């Protein structure tokens, strides 16, 4: 669990280069060697894992690392095209006693590394109590407390019935359990090293190069499918695709154009797995900005954007069209919008609003698909007399531009392309747009009492039909603000060796220890 830095000198660089070159000259050499031989699994890591602490993580591959090294009470399980949950090997029992009491019993023989004792119910209580004060506290709003009833048993007490608690909270990254003793010993928070682990793999990271997961000798649960997992840092998805085709890695995410190509002609010994479509991309509008305060202007923009062209041009036709924030396969998924691509009507709305010569700034992450999307929107809006200036941004400033506490950019925010990932329950996606999220994640800056009320009702409603009705209505309220142009639900698609069965959460995080050779 240590972070190692390697020093590359000119001599070692030349020596490594010569060695690699020599390997490349061997007939049927490195490129043709199957990367998982010797039960080693080679994967791609988008970037270094910066914060492994579940309370303060960024997410993504950090969740992947947590799932290998920290206990969870529940995990996702695929059921055809949908996902449900099952208890993990860390528990022998996880079940509701009633609507607000979820009982658990930890498995015997689970030990923390570094002589930190056994995994206990008090570790669960400690972990979830600290999450309520963390940056991911929203996931634990429904949790009142954790009652410890024995060394390995306890009860998660909810403050109200909350149907998606297991799927949303316990199966996802925030549901990770940390070792109280070891975490307190490092000051209560940690970053690139786990204070103690209990899971199928140990963890080490070489910044900028790779994260390595080795079999944990102290692990008493089911053996993972591979002895060693090496996750190589490859930031560009296109570079990862090349590495996959060269046989250097066994599994990689696919970009839209590669997905289209793979769908047409699969490389040898390759299969494709779609983890989920739990992402929603939209163009947002700041309803409080003086240029966009008139709802007729916002509605004109809704009618002017040709989403079908965006899906064809920027996503190579591989992403499903979005009609709201609830993703395909989930309760409350919409199948139509109340607006459609109609430039003539958009022009009419602009005329009614009496707005001419409107110039707007569209901010977007500087990713290729987003830039292409932005350029199509730019052309669409030019057709109704709106000049759009595209402002590509790095992820750092992008993700805080609408936050009031991060500066004044939110005041100048006009249009932006945004994508959120969600979990398999509609509650998670709707939480970001309640009134109290204005200036945090509700960058469109509208408020609606009915929406807030429905949000609370959706949390405690267990009847699926009623819940569906609630989430459909909430999305209609959002759309009626004129502040949204729904675009797509990007699928998380992986290409992998045909003789490996991969395991991914619906939001795309890979669970390495559940990969199996077949």
């Amino acid at each position, binding site marked *: 669990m240590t972070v190692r830095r390697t020093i590359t000198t000119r001599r070692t660089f030349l020596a490594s280069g010569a060695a690699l070159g020599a390997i490349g000259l061997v007939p049927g050499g490195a490129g043709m060697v199957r990367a998982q031989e010797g039960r080693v699994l080679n994967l791609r890591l988008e970037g270094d894992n910066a914060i492994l602490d579940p309370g303060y993580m960024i997410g993504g591959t950090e969740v992947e690392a947590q799932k290998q090294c920290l206990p969870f009470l529940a995990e996702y399980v695929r059921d055809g095209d949908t996902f449900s949950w099952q208890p993990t090997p860390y528990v022998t029992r996880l079940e509701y006693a009633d609507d607000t009491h979820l009982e658990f019993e930890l498995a015997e023989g689970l030990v923390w590394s570094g002589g930190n004792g056994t995994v206990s119910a008090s570790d669960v209580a400690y972990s979830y109590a600290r999450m309520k004060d963390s940056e991911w506290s929203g996931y634990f709003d429904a949790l009142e407390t954790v009652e410890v009833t024995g060394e390995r048993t306890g009860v998660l007490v909810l403050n109200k019935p909350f149907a998606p608690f297991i799927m949303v909270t316990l199966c996802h990254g925030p549901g990770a359990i940390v070792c109280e003793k070891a975490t307190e010993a490092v000051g209560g928070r940690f970053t690139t090293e786990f204070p103690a682990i209990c899971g199928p793999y140990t963890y080490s990271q070489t910044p900028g190069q790779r994260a390595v997961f080795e079999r944990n000798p102290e692990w008493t649960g089911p053996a993972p499918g591979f002895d060693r997992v090496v996750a190589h840092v490859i930031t560009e998805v296109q570079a990862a695709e090349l590495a996959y085709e060269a046989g250097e890695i066994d599994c990689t995410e696919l970009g839209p154009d590669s997905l289209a190509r793979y769908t047409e002609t699969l490389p040898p010994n390759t299969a494709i797995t779609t983890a989920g479509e739990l992402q929603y991309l939209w163009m947002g509008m700041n309803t409080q900005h003086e240029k966009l305060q008139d709802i007729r202007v916002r509605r004109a923009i809704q009618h002017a954007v040709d989403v079908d062209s965006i899906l064809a041009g920027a996503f190579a036709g591989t992403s499903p069209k979005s009609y709201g924030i609830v993703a395909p396969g989930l309760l409350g998924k919409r199948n139509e919008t109340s607006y459609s691509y109609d430039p003539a009507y958009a022009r009419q709305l602009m005329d009614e609003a009496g707005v001419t010569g409107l110039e707007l700034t569209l901010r977007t992450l500087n990713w290729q698909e987003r830039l292409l999307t932005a*350029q199509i929107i730019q*052309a669409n809006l030019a057709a109704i007399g709106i000049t759009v200036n595209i402002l590509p941004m790095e992820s750092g400033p992008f993700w805080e531009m609408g936050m009031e506490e991060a500066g004044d950019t939110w005041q100048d925010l006009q249009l932006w392309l945004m994508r959120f990932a969600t979990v398999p329950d509609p509650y998670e996606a709707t939480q970001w747009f309640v009134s109290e999220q204005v200036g945090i994640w509700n960058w469109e800056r509208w408020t609606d009492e009915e929406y807030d009320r429905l949000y609370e009702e959706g949390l405690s409603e267990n009847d699926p039909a009623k819940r569906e009705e609630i989430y459909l209505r909430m999305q209609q309220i959002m759309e009626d603000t004129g502040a949204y142009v729904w675009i797509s639900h990007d699928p998380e698609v992986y290409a992998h060796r045909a003789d490996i069965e991969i395991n991914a959460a619906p939001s795309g995080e890979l669970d390495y220890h559940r990969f199996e050779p077949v």
Partner: protein
Amino acid sequence: MPLSPVADAGARRDRRDRLRRFLSDWQAVVGLALVILFVASAVFAPWIAPYDPNAMDIPARMSGPSWAHLAGTDQLGRDTFSRILHGGRVALLIAAIGVSVSLVVGLILGMIAGFGPRWLDSLLLLVFDGVRSFPSIILALATVALTGPSLTVVLAIVIITSIPGYARVARTATLALRHAEFILAERSLGAGTTRILLHHMMPNVIGPLLILAAMDVPVVVSIEAGLSFLGIGVLPPRSSWGTILNEGYLLIRDAPWMVVAGGIPLILTTLGFTFLGEALRDTFDPRMGRER
């Protein structure tokens, strides 16, 4: 003062000799041809380009090279050849403005450093070396982080990073001329510093700078392309060779012609200006002439 008939004839003969020497150098001819091609294609791009560079034809996205689209189309179905021609306009604009502004400012600062008091020389040298020691890409990244990407930022980066090169050459030439007899003679006749600098120093200093400017154009074009490749240069939908290269790099297995199409003009322009600059230096630098 008008030249005597004998001196005038000598000067004309000297010019003819240099022109003959220039035209007999194949590198000079190739360089000149490529530069003319670059400038002409950029200037006349709106008339030569077969399509509007920003016109999208999504059903025809990522089409290979054909008679309809000589360099194929990009992800939005835009004609790559038209975008290359218009990208040349961006390169020419940046090169023309960037190099000329850098040259003028560098010339003035260099002459001030070479002709001014010692302390001013030392101060300006410190500034020149300070700017030169700062990597242009890092400077660009820092600037873009503060201001956001734009063509103006690219120009500013080019100018700021290029000025010290011109200033250093101008300073050295000014120092060499400072105690020349004709300058001392001007001084003794009561000429002011401004007159000496503008009328006597500058004509003698500017020659090497013009050669340096020709050699600098490909550097500037590469800086613009590099910044645009990194996404911190020109903004979409405006095309630049750097953005075409970046898009081509991302699609290298699906649409390899984009990288080729984006790389060729960059290579030819770099070659053209390098050949031309070296030929000009060989022709007009007296020391090089003596070596021949």
